């Protein structure tokens, strides 16, 4: 298979996943118990007529597939509908708030990769030494501590006691530090474990013996050869991790009162604002799939076996 073919295949799979996830979201909301229309109007004043009109207006009396295809066609034209709470169009709202979320996602992704890979590698190379023990503790904390917990802890230490960094807000880099740290730690935990294990596997491979027999320095053996091999399986985890990060923003943005789309969706859920929920979920699905596509493709560039296979 040529590279072009492979890229085409990956892109079309990505497209299928987007359609699939939108169907899924749409059907979950469709099947959700409770009449969305009833939640929109004050039941004390609602007459059956009003309900029926509103339902018609919203197209909710149509069969599922028509509702879905209409929604999907609108989405393709950039129309994600309107909020039922304040009639604002959904897409501009998402676009307005997305940068804050993107910034948080990117910084925490970078943090988790940097912390994760560094400690993962060092803990494999210095197995059972003090640095390995520290790395494993960080890993354990990252994996087992819920983000809202670590978020509050960080606020307590760095904002309340030390007063170094602001505890809330979404403007300026200072407001990014604590949320990305608390979010990044989770990913870092997974990446440390993953990189450590795959480094240890690679170090036991026969070719490492060859490299040493050639008289190369341990530094070259470890950082030039072993690391590159170990990163290949780690990339998959990093890709998955970015999806996790995206999901994690919902909690973190609430804890740190950041104006991101995680926050929008949290508010929308409280208000049962279906078009907004739908829009955000759909939008996130697209972002997620695109990120994974990029990760997948980067894989082919890092691993020559994938790149050159046939």
């Amino acid at each position, binding site marked *: 298979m040529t590279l072009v073919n492979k890229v085409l295949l990956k892109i079309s799979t990505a497209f299928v996943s987007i359609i699939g996830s939108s169907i899924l979201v749409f059907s979950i909301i469709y099947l959700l118990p409770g009449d969305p229309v009833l939640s929109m109007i004050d039941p004390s004043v609602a007459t059956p007529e009003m309900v029926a009109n509103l339902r018609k207006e919203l197209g909710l009396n149509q069969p599922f597939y028509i509702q879905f295809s209409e929604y999907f066609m609108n989405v393709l034209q950039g129309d994600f509908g309107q909020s039922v709470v304040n009639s604002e169009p959904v897409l501009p709202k998402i676009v307005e708030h997305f940068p804050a979320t993107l910034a948080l996602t990117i910084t925490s992704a970078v943090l988790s990769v940097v912390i994760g890979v560094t400690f993962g590698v060092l803990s494999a190379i210095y197995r059972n030494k003090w640095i390995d023990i520290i790395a494993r503790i960080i890993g354990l904390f990252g994996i087992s501590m819920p983000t809202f917990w670590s978020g509050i802890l960080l606020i307590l230490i760095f904002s309340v006691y030390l007063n170094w960094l602001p505890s809330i807000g979404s403007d300026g880099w200072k407001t990014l530090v604590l949320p990305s740290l608390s979010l990044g730690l989770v990913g870092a935990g997974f990446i440390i474990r993953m990189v450590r294990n795959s480094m240890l596997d690679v170090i036991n491979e026969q070719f490492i*013996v*060859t490299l040493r027999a*050639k*008289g190369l320095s*341990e530094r070259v053996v470890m950082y030039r050869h072993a690391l590159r*091999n170990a990163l290949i399986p780690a990339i998959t985890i990093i890709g998955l991790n970015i999806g996790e990060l995206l999901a994690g923003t919902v909690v973190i943005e609430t804890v740190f009162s950041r104006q991101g789309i995680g926050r929008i969706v949290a508010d929308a859920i409280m208000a049962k604002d279906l078009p907004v929920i739908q829009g955000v979920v759909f939008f996130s699905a697209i972002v997620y799939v695109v990120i994974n596509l990029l990760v997948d493709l980067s894989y082919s560039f890092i691993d020559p076996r994938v790149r050159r296979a*046939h």
Partner: protein
Amino acid sequence: MEKLLDIQHLKVDFTMKDGDLTAIKDVSLHINIGETVCIVGESGSGKSVTSKAIMRLIDYENGKISAGSIVLDGMDLAQLSQKKLRSICGKKVAMIFQEPMAAFDPVFTIGSQIIETILENKQFTKLQAKERALYLLNRVGISDPALRLNQYPNELSGGMLQRAMIAMALACGPDLLIADEPTTALDVTIQAQILKLLQEIKEEFGMSILLITHDMGVAAQMADRIIVMYAGRIVEYATVSQMFELPHHPYTRGLLQSITTIDSDRSKKLYSINGSIPGLADLPPGCQFHPRCPFATERCSMELPPLREVNDRYTACWYAEDLVESFDWKQPSGETKNDRHSIKEIVLSDSKRGSEPLFTIQQLSKFYPIGKKSPFSRNSSYLRAVENVTFTIEKGETFGLVGESGSGKSTLGRVLLQLEKPTSGKVFFQGQDLSKLDAKELREKRRNMQMIYQDPYGSVNPRWKVGDIIGEPLQVHDSLSAKDKHDRVQDLLEVVGLNKSSFNLYPHEFSGGQRQRIAIARAIALNPQFILADEAVSALDVSVQAQIVNLLQDLQRERDLTYLFIAHGLNIVRHVSDRIGVMYLGQMVEMAPSETLFLHPAHHYTKGLIDSIPIADPARTRERISLKGEIPSPANPPAGCRFHTRCPAATARCREEQPIFREIHTGHWVACHDPL
């Protein structure tokens, strides 16, 4: 002669969870300039540890040199710091390994890995290093070196990679090349090429070679001197001619007698050394070989014999002087000669003539689609793993299949048992067309056809007890009571020569040979008529290989079994098979009775294969004309006779017209325009 390397009283320990384990002890050997020294012995005897200790590669595996010295150029490598060692490793001493595919870093090109090594020698610029890499690749016989330089290890064949590995070892012009089983993973044809290459570059670069092998044939061909190791110690040390003429240690004698050769008598049982090599944790006291030694006395079980000079060589046996004088010593495998067997053999081969076929295979083909992994690539093509093969397997015989890897042997076996559906052609078993059977009927038939693979450990669930592994087929096919089943399994354990108490043990508690016995017990549990043995003895050491082959042959006689025996070790196939088929690129190119095939091969490929077998006799090292080149890809086989690209006798006709598979004498079939 001047000594290049001098090892004295070397002892290597490995630090384990529960204390130290001594892997080799009191190992003393030297290598002269320009000399090839071979270390032989069964797996687990300490050959690789010895070789890895020289460059202190054991340091990275929790190993340490706890006594002794390794002197090279007046320096004791055992005392050097890792940093100082770097000026020796890869420069004065280089090493190549068994699995060339695993020995290269998969994510760097061949070129960058060779150049990296050359650049360790500080005098070279990058450009010069690249030129030298090209020169070296060319020297080791890699065609199109400029292209190979930019390829990744997975894009080269095993033989090519081993050549590249040799080129990399030559990068800094070493004085000593350590080669740890460099040809064990390769086909016999490629092995012959690599051995020849090693001999050439040894002369050309003025190197010494320390060659580790378990193949006495390879040692006979390559070595000036041979060192035999057993359970971490040297038990014998002699020149190659001394060793083959008159071994002085019972273990060496056993190794030499276990070898099957082209002219050994097929009607005799193979000689085998009893038992198996002990683990390091439970070495026997006294002479470590005594539990397996037919000459052991009480003294042997208490006192360890030292390595001492006897008749101009070194040996570690109390009775070496007397033993070599005894009548028994030189009598080749006298005590296991089995007259009853040979008579039975003759009767059998006579009665076989008129006997009915068990398997009839007609124009069988198996193609695998390739290149159609994406809906965006339009052209699909096929890998022709097996094409148009026709033959029969008679009831009660052993049919052998040989050919280089990739020739389609295993695929043919799998299709025969309907583990995969053929692309076209028919397979009749007991006159019944297997493709016409439905799933249930096929399952019924399957109990008559069992298989044994190369890696018995890989094909069983490691968490099951041995009794359950053997009993599983009984469960599936027969509704026996638990007690009956238990009894049957115990019978089976006895039949294959295992202790009844093995029932409750796990597979990892057994040695390779014993695990193969377990696999055999499982295979015969349902009293099948047919067993497919695909490389079933290939991974075993010669002495154990002989035990398993003898067991298979005993079972065949007792139970009237029919075997399809696939192996790449030609001598062993010759020994067990009544008839042999030779495969090349998915086709059967020759088929004949075992003796005929080896004495009068008609196909040029068969001849090439036979000529590639190393002869375990240093006096008979012939100037071999082994096969050139490598087997082409079955995705794109050459037109005409598929062998024409490598055939020394190919003509214009061979390049265009495919030869037909025809009978040239009774029972001797060949597909060649111009047979030998």
